[in-house]
């Protein structure tokens, strides 16, 4: 029977969706039709597949070929279906045993010479194949990625001829003899905290943020080290755990940001959008099929907004939802796409438009109204979610010269952070939260109430008009992280005062 069936995967959002690829050859004039809501890239598979088959030394059937992609109502996009289409046609032409195809998921883009080119999102595709219990054929350069999925047979092919040989049983295995590895290149690529001189208070704030997963804001004149500090946050965050690492790797693979042959991403990603970025670029969406935004790339990592007040109001507002729910839901007619976006936010801002307010070396030209308006762009609901608020001042010359002692490196701080995380994880065991920052303040008060004498200093600060009730709750939450870092069972009065210091500053940025 001139009909063959195989499977492939397309990626929608961050999930792989299985697509059945059928090829039928009927008598008629040579022609090829691809049906099933294919976009231009899929329709072009017709020409790529034909050239690749001929250049691989196989005969292209000069008949009427119909390729059906189902589910037919789903929009198919991209070039990852190429290989499956070529294989289905060859199967229908009787060139490959059909039974070998049925339980196989095939992904790969074809070059005209029959080479199999890498695809984006191989990890998500492999996960989809595993879910239906099928073996998967991937381009050789995606092997590392697909092989990260346990309980899955992965065949890697470099060209169409290789896959044809594999299916005919001529070649026993197509897998290269490499094993998936953790990416070794990442360790050296993250800048180290020892580069930052001075800013002792800010370094501690950063450590707190890392230990508790708190969002953090930094206010200070330009050139003071805000960016320097923010860039070093991933270096002191704990390495990504198994599940998180797979999620992050899958997202980065779909976005095409994974280097060829790169394995699991084990370090928290650091994403710094420019302040001219659009809403769609930051949170995802866009026209046509929803695309991943930068917040999704920052999933399980750090999203750094430098010059935060310069961002469009709509972009800042759009961040509120992912900050709340840890995901973005993009709605299109007929379907919703959920994009993961659980990130740690780092905001940096100059104190005024010219950036010189509070500076010792130059005089700020901004009017007080301008200054107020500048910071007011960061709306209350956004600032509300930020637990650690740092005011950075210019370091003294002594600090710059490093007289105050040896500067700690990232590895030293990371060790303390890991220990603190370990303590908080033990406390939160069996609960739906992983870090202190995720615990709602109401739950915090209910489950772990603190004695009155411990929180006295904080309450006093709020009584004297230095903050709101909500701010008080936030201080208590931060105090838990201070306690975790210090190795205390629960926050002491000093821990609460330390936490208070991290939140009270001047003007709007105070709690």
């Amino acid at each position, binding site marked *: 029977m001139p009909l063959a069936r195989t499977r492939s995967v397309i990626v929608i959002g961050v999930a792989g969706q299985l697509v059945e690829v059928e090829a039928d050859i009927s*008598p*008629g*004039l*040579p022609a090829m039709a691809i049906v099933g809501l294919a976009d231009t890239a899929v329709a072009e598979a017709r020409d790529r597949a034909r050239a690749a088959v001929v250049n691989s030394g196989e005969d292209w059937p*000069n008949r009427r070929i119909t390729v059906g992609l189902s589910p037919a109502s789903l929009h198919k996009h991209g070039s990852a279906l190429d290989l499956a289409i070529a294989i289905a046609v060859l199967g229908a032409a009787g060139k490959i045993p059909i039974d070998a195809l049925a339980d196989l998921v095939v992904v790969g883009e074809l070059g005209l010479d029959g080479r199999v080119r890498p695809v984006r999102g191989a990890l998500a595709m492999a996960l989809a194949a595993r879910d239906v219990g099928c073996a998967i054929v991937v381009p050789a350069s995606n092997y590392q990625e697909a092989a990260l999925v346990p309980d899955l047979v992965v065949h890697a092919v470099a060209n169409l001829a290789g896959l044809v040989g594999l299916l005919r049983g001529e070649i026993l295995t197509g897998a290269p003899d490499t094993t998936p590895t953790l990416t070794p290149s990442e360790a050296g690529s993250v800048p180290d905290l020892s580069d930052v001189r001075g800013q002792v208070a800010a370094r501690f704030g950063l450590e707190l943020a890392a230990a508790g997963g708190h969002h953090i804001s930094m206010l200070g004149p330009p050139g003071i080290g805000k960016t320097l500090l923010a860039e070093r946050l991933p270096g002191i965050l704990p390495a990504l755990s198994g599940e998180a690492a797979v999620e992050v790797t899958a997202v980065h693979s779909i976005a095409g940001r994974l280097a060829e042959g790169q394995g699991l991403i084990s370090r928290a990603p650091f994403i710094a959008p420019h302040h001219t970025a659009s809403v769609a670029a930051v949170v995802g969406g866009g026209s046509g099929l929803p695309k991943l935004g930068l917040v999704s790339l920052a999933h399980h990592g750090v999203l750094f907004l430098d010059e935060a007040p310069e961002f469009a109001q709509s972009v800042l507002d759009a961040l509120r939802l992912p900050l709340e729910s840890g995901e973005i839901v993009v709605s299109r007619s007929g379907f919703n796409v959920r994009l993961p976006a659980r990130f740690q936010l780092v905001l940096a801002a100059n104190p005024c438009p010219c950036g010189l307010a509070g500076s010792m070396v130059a005089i700020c030209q901004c009017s007080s109204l301008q200054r107020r308006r500048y910071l007011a762009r960061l709306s209350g609901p956004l600032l509300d979610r930020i637990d650690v608020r740092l005011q950075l001042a210019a370091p003294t010359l002594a600090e710059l010269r490093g007289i105050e002692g040896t500067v700690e490196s990232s590895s030293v701080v990371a060790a303390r952070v890991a220990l603190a995380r370990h303590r908080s994880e033990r406390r939160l065991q069996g609960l739906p939260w992983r870090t202190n920052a995720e615990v709602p303040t109401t739950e915090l008060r209910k489950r772990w109430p603190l004695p009155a004498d411990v929180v006295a200093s904080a309450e006093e600060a709020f009584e004297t008009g230095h903050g709101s009730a909500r701010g008080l709750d936030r201080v208590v939450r931060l105090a838990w992280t201070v306690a975790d870092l210090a190795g205390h069972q629960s926050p002491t009065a000093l821990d609460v005062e330390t936490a208070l210091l991290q939140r009270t500053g001047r003007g709007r940025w105070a709690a």
Partner: protein
Amino acid sequence: MAQKDALGRYGEELAVRTLVAAGYQLLDRNWRCRQGEIDIVAFDGHTLVICEVKTRSGLAFGSPAAAVDKRKLARLHRLAAAWLATHDVRCIEIRIDVIAILCRRGAPQIEHLVGVG
């Protein structure tokens, strides 16, 4: 050019023999009008068959059948109508066939594509 035309005529001869051998009743050959030419008109039972013959001596320019594209098919449709208009023939059904002939070493390969458009 003459060689090409000779190949074409040889192909048409082969095609006619094929159709006759299959029991078709031949009506017309190389019928021309302003819009073009029909290679063979024949009856297959009660079906009027408009037959286009494509002959090639090699595959360098693709298979012979692949040379019949949408435009050519559309032309054959128009020609069929024109032929019917000028002949007093009644038929229940009209069909367009392509006979693709590849003349390489050994016996020519004849492929009869039934009902292509």
